[in-house]
Every structure is written in structure tokens, then in C-alpha cells.
């Protein structure tokens, strides 16, 4: 019996455990197994195997039961998920349904989640930009949050490392505020996007329209073929999962790579209840998990743990990992765990039309989505009455004028021979929000979910800075669009709640001072250094870049450090 137990514990002991299989968890798995560590990846959702589990990927529009629409009863049952742009008939099976995983909204917050192997990496918008020092130095310069413990130079080699493997398309634009990376050719701007780029060069030389940088294989390299991925085929049906592996996801890239190493054990359908802490050893020893179906609990052990549960779930897990040493959550000596949550403000858009360049249209589809305008406000110095600024997605396309009048032959003719519309132009704000103590998550004191986990209670809201920044975005783009000759300019305030941006960050922030931060410069918990947090929870501030690329780089860098520390036995003993 005793021997059996020892064998059982041995079977449940790994060199490393990764909690979560999404964007950053997949990278932790790939890097850890690549260094020869026997790694367990636990995922609370079901398995999604590349190509095998993409049920809609090759469906034509007419093959969907409801033409792509979400049935009424599903919409009614899922008001939160229904507000997400990927919650359509082709991808709604990858989005968490409201009733299955409830949470508490102290203030309105649309928490969009993807509980499956690969997480939201299946669904992301695939935009990838590096941070620059103007981003990392923001909190210190402008006096908010805490200073970042790292700068661009610390992360640059790791950006390169992950970019080469993931496959990033983009141009070397040579911009100080948006460092160049390891690029495959960028997807080109179209005639009107170029027109606006050239116009801005003349009127605002510090404002740049560039090809959106994205995780698509425009010109795959041997490393991508080795992953079984080939060139992006411009389907722009990415949210269904891509049979070509044309865009980066954990499912198409890092996880199968880790599997191939022979060192990965992938365990889906396991909810992590808590991280186990050993008071004598002064370190975390493993995890307690609940089988998502049977509810049976088991423990797994490893000398090093990576927490990649997704920003807010990582907060929830640490808050729920209590011990007499850490009564307020693992590593939470400072009391900042769950606080200083921030996000990106996506609530503002400006639309316009353009009557010029009618001799051109587009052919095929652009997976990058068009252009990107890096932050131009308060980059080099403070110059407005609000802090920080916004990046902007910018795109132009022509639609179809397809009148639907009349009957019979007349009607059919109109439908069958649509005319081209003028160029439609859209700009979307991606605003930095300021992390504040009053924007927090915590455990609901009484309510629990089906697995006995406390519900996460979320109190995150916009502030005056966000309102001023939005006003500036409206004014600047209205002026720039007017001067570029665009017409019918309309500002649009979606009034959407935070969360729908799906860029929630923070709560377990990095910093140099253990009294005001949770993680050190290597993403280790100050107070429990064999636990690494490398997902969005680690973010000290948000800047304006789409965050995933930075999580990937932070993760690869942290694994490198963890393995060095393990080799030197620094993590094994206190």
C-alpha cells in the first residue's frame, strides 16, 4: 500500500507544471519541454486538437444552419458572450457561455473567456506589436502604478525568439515608438489606406500609418513548415481554427511542438483549485485539481509552476491559494493581489467615406485587417490634459450596393449585379487605461461555482482620463479625416463595458518593490519564487499594444530564467 502511494505520487510528479494552455501557457509548455523538462499542462476546458476539433473550419456560408447567426434562445441565454464579435454561429463553441461560468459584476464588465485547450489563442485578433521603452517607462515618467522592473532591452531578444517561431508579418518601419521585429513581409496597405498614410506624412509627420503587424505566415520559413504550418491563405476565418496553421495559436504551434518533444503531458478538463504551499520548505509544491466532470480532486507536484490561467483567472487562483503563511492569497504579502487591474479602451470609432480612388478596389482578403497607427499622443513628452494615449486600427474597404427593391426579375437582377460602394473607412481606438487600486477583482465571500470555486467579483471601470482621451481621439480623427478629403465622417461611442476589449491585465503586477508589487523582474512571486506568473495578470501597465506578443516574450524569458535557477538548485531549497 505504501509503495503504491509512493508510485502514485511519483506518477503525479513532474519537473514543471503549467496552469493554462492558452497564449502564454502554450509558450511555457513549448519552452519548458524544449529544455528537457517533463511538463504537465493542465487546462480547465476540453481538448481541442489542431484540425481535428475545428468543426466549422471548412464550411461554406450556406452550410450553416442559420446563415452564421446565433439562434435567439442562445442569445437570450448569453447576453455577455453575445456582445463579443466572435460569438457567431461559426465560433460560438469556443466561447464560454454565461450560465456555465458565472461571475459577479460589482461594476459592468463583459468577461469573455475561452475554456478549452488553446484558450483564446484560437480566437484572438492576431495583432502583434512590440513595446518600446516609451511604453515601459510610462508609469515611472507619469507617476502612476509602479515602475516596471524591466525595459525594452530586457525583452528584445525574447521578442525575437518568439516572433521567429510564431511567425509575424510586418514591415520594418523604423519607428522609435514601435520597435521593428523579426518579420515576414507585411500585408500591403490598399489604395485608400496608402492615401491616408501619404496625407499624414505631410500634415502630421509624427503620425504613421503602417501595415498592421500580425501573427500570420505571409512567407513561411523552415521552422514553420516543421510545425506543420503553411502560408496563410487569406481566408480570414481564423476564429474557426485554421487548417493551414496560417495564424499562430497554441493549438497549431506551441502545443504540438511541445508534444513532439515527448516531455509534455496535456491534461484537459482539470480545474485548478489551488496552488499547494509547503511552510517548511517555503515554496509551492504543486496544485490541487478538480476533475471538471467527476469533481474528483487530485494533486500534482513539481518544483516549478507557471501560472497562465488567463489574467483574471490567474488572480482568482492565487487569491484562492491560501495557507497560514499566505492567508490573503499566495504571495500576497503586499495586499496588492487583485488590484490595479487595467484594460484597453476600445469604445471609440470614427467612420467615414471616400469618393476618390474609385478606379481601385480590393481583391481577396487581408488577414492583417489593414493599417495600424501607433500611439502619437504623449510619446516623447506629456502634451495633453490626459495621461498616455491610444493606438488606432485603421482600414478602408469597398462594400456592395445591393438594392433590394421590386419583385421577380427586377429584384433578382439587382441582387445579382451589385455595384461597388464608395470606400468605407474605419478607425478604432485602442486606449491605454491607468491601473488603479480601485479597479480590482476579489473572491465573492459566499457564492461558489459548480466546482466549489469562489466566484470572481469584478470592479473595473473607466475614469475621467479615459473620457478625455476618447474625446481627443474623436477630435483628432475627425480633423485628420476631413483634411484627407474623407466625407460623411461619424464618431461612434459604443459605450461598451470594460472587458469586451478582451485585454484585461494586471492584478499580479511586476515591480521591483515587494511591498507594492507581486512579481519580480523574472515574473516570480516575490514571496514564493518557484511560482511564475507570465500571462496578462503580470502587467504593471497596459500601454496601447495588443498584449499577446508581450506575454509570449515574458513567458519565454521567464522559462529561461526558471531553468537556470533549477539547474543552480535555487528554486528547490529555501
Amino acid at each position, binding site marked *: 500500500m505504501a509503495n503504491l502511494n509512493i508510485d502514485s505520487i511519483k506518477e503525479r510528479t513532474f519537473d514543471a507544471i503549467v496552469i493554462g494552455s492558452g497564449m502564454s501557457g502554450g509558450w511555457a509548455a513549448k519552452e519548458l519541454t524544449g529544455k528537457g523538462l517533463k511538463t504537465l499542462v493542465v487546462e480547465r476546458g476540453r481538448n481541442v486538437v489542431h484540425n481535428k476539433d475545428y468543426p466549422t473550419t471548412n464550411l461554406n456560408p450556406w452550410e450553416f444552419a442559420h446563415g452564421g447567426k446565433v439562434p435567439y434562445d442562445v442569445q437570450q441565454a448569453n447576453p455577455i458572450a453575445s456582445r463579443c464579435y466572435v460569438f457567431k454561429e461559426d465560433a460560438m463553441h469556443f466561447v464560454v457561455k454565461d450560465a456555465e461560468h458565472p461571475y459577479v459584476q460589482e461594476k459592468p464588465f463583459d468577461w469573455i473567456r475561452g475554456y478549452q485547450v488553446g484558450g483564446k489563442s484560437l480566437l484572438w485578433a492576431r495583432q502583434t506589436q512590440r513595446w518600446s521603452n516609451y511604453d515601459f517607462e510610462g508609469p515611472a515618467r507619469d507617476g502612476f502604478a509602479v515602475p516596471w522592473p524591466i525595459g525594452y532591452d530586457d525583452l528584445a531578444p525574447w521578442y525575437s525568439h518568439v516572433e521567429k517561431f510564431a511567425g509575424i508579418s510586418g514591415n520594418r518601419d523604423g519607428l522609435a515608438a514601435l520597435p521593428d521585429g523579426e518579420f515576414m513581409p507585411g500585408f500591403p496597405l490598399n489604395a485608400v489606406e496608402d492615401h491616408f498614410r501619404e496625407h499624414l506624412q505631410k500634415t502630421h509627420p509624427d503620425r504613421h500609418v503602417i501595415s498592421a503587424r500580425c501573427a500570420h505566415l505571409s512567407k513561411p520559413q523552415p521552422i514553420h513548415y516543421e510545425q506543420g504550418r503553411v502560408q496563410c491563405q487569406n481566408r480570414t476565418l481564423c476564429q474557426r481554427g485554421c487548417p493551414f496553421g496560417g495564424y499562430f495559436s497554441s493549438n497549431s504551434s506551441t502545443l504540438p511542438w511541445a508534444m513532439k518533444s515527448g516531455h509534455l503531458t496535456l491534461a484537459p478538463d482539470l480545474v485548478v483549485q489551488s496552488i499547494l504551499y509547503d511552510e517548511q520548505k517555503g515554496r509551492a509544491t504543486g496544485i490541487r485539481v478538480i476533475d471538471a466532470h467527476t469533481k474528483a480532486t487530485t494533486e500534482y507536484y513539481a518544483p516549478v509552476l507557471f501560472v497562465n490561467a488567463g489574467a483574471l483567472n490567474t488572480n482568482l487562483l492565487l487569491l484562492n491559494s491560501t495557507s497560514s503563511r499566505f492567508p490573503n492569497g499566495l504571495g500576497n504579502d503586499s495586499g496588492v493581489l487583485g488590484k490595479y487591474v487595467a484594460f484597453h479602451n476600445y469604445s471609440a470609432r470614427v467612420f467615414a467615406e471616400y469618393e476618390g480612388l474609385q478606379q*481601385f478596389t480590393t481583391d481577396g482578403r487581408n488577414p492583417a485587417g489593414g493599417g495600424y497607427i501607433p500611439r502619437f499622443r504623449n510619446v516623447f513628452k506629456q502634451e495633453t490634459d490626459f495621461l498616455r494615449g491610444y493606438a488606432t486600427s485603421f482600414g478602408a474597404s469597398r462594400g456592395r450596393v445591393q438594392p433590394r427593391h421590386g419583385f421577380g426579375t427586377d429584384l433578382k437582377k439587382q441582387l*445579382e449585379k451589385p455595384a461597388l460602394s464608395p470606400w468605407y473607412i474605419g478607425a478604432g481606438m485602442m486606449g491605454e487605461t491607468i491601473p488603479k487600486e480601485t479597479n480590482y477583482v476579489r473572491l465573492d465571500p459566499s457564492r461558489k461555482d459548480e466546482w466549489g470555486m469562489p466566484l470572481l467579483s469584478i470592479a473595473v471601470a473607466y475614469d475621467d482620463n479615459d473620457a478625455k482621451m476618447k474625446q481627443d481621439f474623436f477630435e483628432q480623427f475627425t480633423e485628420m479625416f476631413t483634411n484627407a478629403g474623407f466625407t460623411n465622417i461619424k464618431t461612434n461611442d459604443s459605450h461598451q463595458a470594460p472587458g469586451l476589449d478582451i485585454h484585461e491585465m494586471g492584478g499580479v503586477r511586476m515591480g521591483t518593490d515587494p511591498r507594492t508589487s507581486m512579481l519580480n523582474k523574472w515574473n516570480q512571486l516575490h514571496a514564493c519564487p518557484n511560482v511564475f506568473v507570465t500571462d496578462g495578470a503580470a502587467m504593471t501597465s497596459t500601454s496601447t499594444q495588443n498584449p499577446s506578443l508581450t506575454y509570449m516574450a515574458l513567458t519565454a524569458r521567464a522559462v529561461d530564467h526558471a531553468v537556470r535557477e533549477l539547474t543552480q538548485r535555487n528554486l528547490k531549497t529555501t
Partner: protein
Amino acid sequence: MNRRLAVRHLTLVAGAAALLPGCLSQSHDEQAATYPLKHLALNANQEKLLAEVCETLIPRTDTPGAKDLSLHLYVLKMLDDCTPPKEQQTFVAGLGQLDAAATRQLGQSFGASAAAQRTALLQRIDEQPTQFSDELAAFYRAARQLAIDGYTGSKYFMTKQVVYELVPGRYDGYFPVSKVNLAVPHHGQS
């Protein structure tokens, strides 16, 4: 929804369409609609009437019409699954009033009227909706919109008229409008 379900659904559509002519000898008012509906209370006669309305909007010409494409079944599916209950009830009520309106305006039921007369009646509802009941006008608007959606979203339309490409494999941001194939435009050329 997985591919197998989609295929099953398409088979259902084809099956229901094939069943229609065979049912003509029975009492259609009592007989349930041939198409499996979860919410809509529709009898076989009403289903047939809807098919005639759709065919009036999009008739067979030298190209397929509503009946060829079973557009009324698409209308029913979208109403049954994707429409709020109140609009479903209005739709069924309006459909139920169509024959009475036809008798008033054309002297006989919608089904018994010639194609030109049917078109004339629908055109009147289209142009002067206030002369008809709210339900009938709402039924007409919904049927029209869904039938057209069904037509432009059909496999026929998306392979033969305005072609949808699942795998374009290209992007050109400076595609000359002069090169757009107006005979068979592609969805990608937008």
C-alpha cells in the same frame, strides 16, 4: 454545429421539399407543417402559402426561383430559431390574414390567383402598408427580408451569381475596378 449536423440539416431541407407534393390530397389545415418547427405553430397550408409568397418575390426565371431553392424553409428556420417570440406570433398572424386580403383585393385566395395578381397584391402591401393590418404588413416585411437573405445566402447564389471563395489565397489592395468580372463578381472583390 459540426459538419455532420450541417449535412443532416441540408438533407432535412431536401427531404421536406420532396415531401410537399405528396401531401396534397390531405387536409392541410389540420396537418402540421412538413418542416420540423420548435416554436412556430404553422399548418401545412400556411407553409404552402408561404412558399407561394416567396416564389412571387423570387420566381423561377431562366435561373432558379424560391421553390427550387426551398427559400420558404429557410424563412421558417430563421423565424423559428432566430426570431423573438413576439415577431414569430405576428408573422403567423399576418400570414393567416393573407388569403382574406387576397379575397378582398383580388376576388380569390392568394393561391388561386395568377402570378401577376399575386405580385400586384404584394406590391400594394409593400407600397401602402397602412392600408393593411399591422400583422400582415409585418409578415410581408419579414418574409421578404428573409427570403432575399436566403436567396443571396444560398449555395446557388454564392457559387453562380456573386461567388464566395472559401480560400482566396491572395490579397490585392490596388485591384483595378476595370478588371472586376461584372458577369460573375466575387465576394472578395469588395
